[in-house]
């Protein structure tokens, strides 16, 4: 059985997903990110608040795109993950 992802891993997964797709609908984050609606909503709110993703509207439909700050985090996430694992955080 796969190990449960922690908050850091979920955040990195969401950001990587948005970066790969370019722009993505919230429902796609929901099933591609393997999250419940409530959890997805709380993560999206948090990431938006931290300026890592941004909501855009196209033809009355809502999409999310990654910001420069979010993209930088994706790049650095491997280093941070290695350090976190090394210390057992």
């Amino acid at each position, binding site marked *: 059985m796969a190990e449960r992802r922690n908050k850091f891993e979920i955040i990195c997964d969401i950001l990587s997903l948005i970066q790969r797709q370019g722009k993505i609908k919230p429902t796609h984050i929901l099933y591609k990110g393997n999250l419940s609606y409530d959890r997805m909503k709380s993560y999206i709110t948090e990431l938006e608040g*931290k300026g890592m993703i941004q909501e855009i509207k196209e033809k009355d439909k809502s999409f999310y795109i990654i910001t420069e700050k979010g993209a930088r985090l994706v790049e650095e996430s491997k280093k941070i993950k*290695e*350090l976190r694992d*090394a210390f*057992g*955080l």
Partner: protein
Amino acid sequence: MILDFRGPNWFFGADIVIQILGLIISLVIAYYGYKLYKITSRKIDLYFSIAFALLSLDLITYIIAVPTVFLYYAYYYPAVQPGVLLTFAQILNFVYMFTTSLAFIFLIMVYSGIERKNVIALIASLIFALTAYSYITRSYFGFNLINALLLAFIVFHVYNNFLAKKSKSAFLVMVSFMLLTISYLILAYGFYFSSNLAYLFSHILQFLGYASLLIMLIRVKYGRKKK
């Protein structure tokens, strides 16, 4: 501890170089820890970053205090009593001892997962009382022994982490904390028996401990080599 140098004379000042290495490593880890906290907003990650920031502060005080004591004894002793430089070094010594213990308390909070404020306050008070007692009585044996015990608790956790992760980075962290624990034990022995050799060995072990963390950081920065 800073004011009670027990190493061989030729080693005086060489320990600063070791602490500068430790300072750079601590600052880098504190920086990454803070980045992790900014992403997760977890208290544990913040405590981890604070622990290494405090270790950086204690190493800065060490780096400043040792030349201060040297200057005092080289140029002013015993002309100025009590010397301003010596008072300055005593304040730095005080800061050094408390920030060291506080840093280890934060690391213990990280690894034990304790978030209840009253439990944290109780542990912190007990350790502070012991550190204060060590400072007042100038019992550097006691101070180093307390730190060795605090570090031993951390070693237990990083050892379990290594068993779970089986990664080289986790191994290097475990080795580093083990070496630092042994170095504090040897330092305690050195102060108790006034052994120059013990002081020297403890600093060599400290250097190896820092080097282990440095290798781990290089691995983190540049990634693992592909086979």
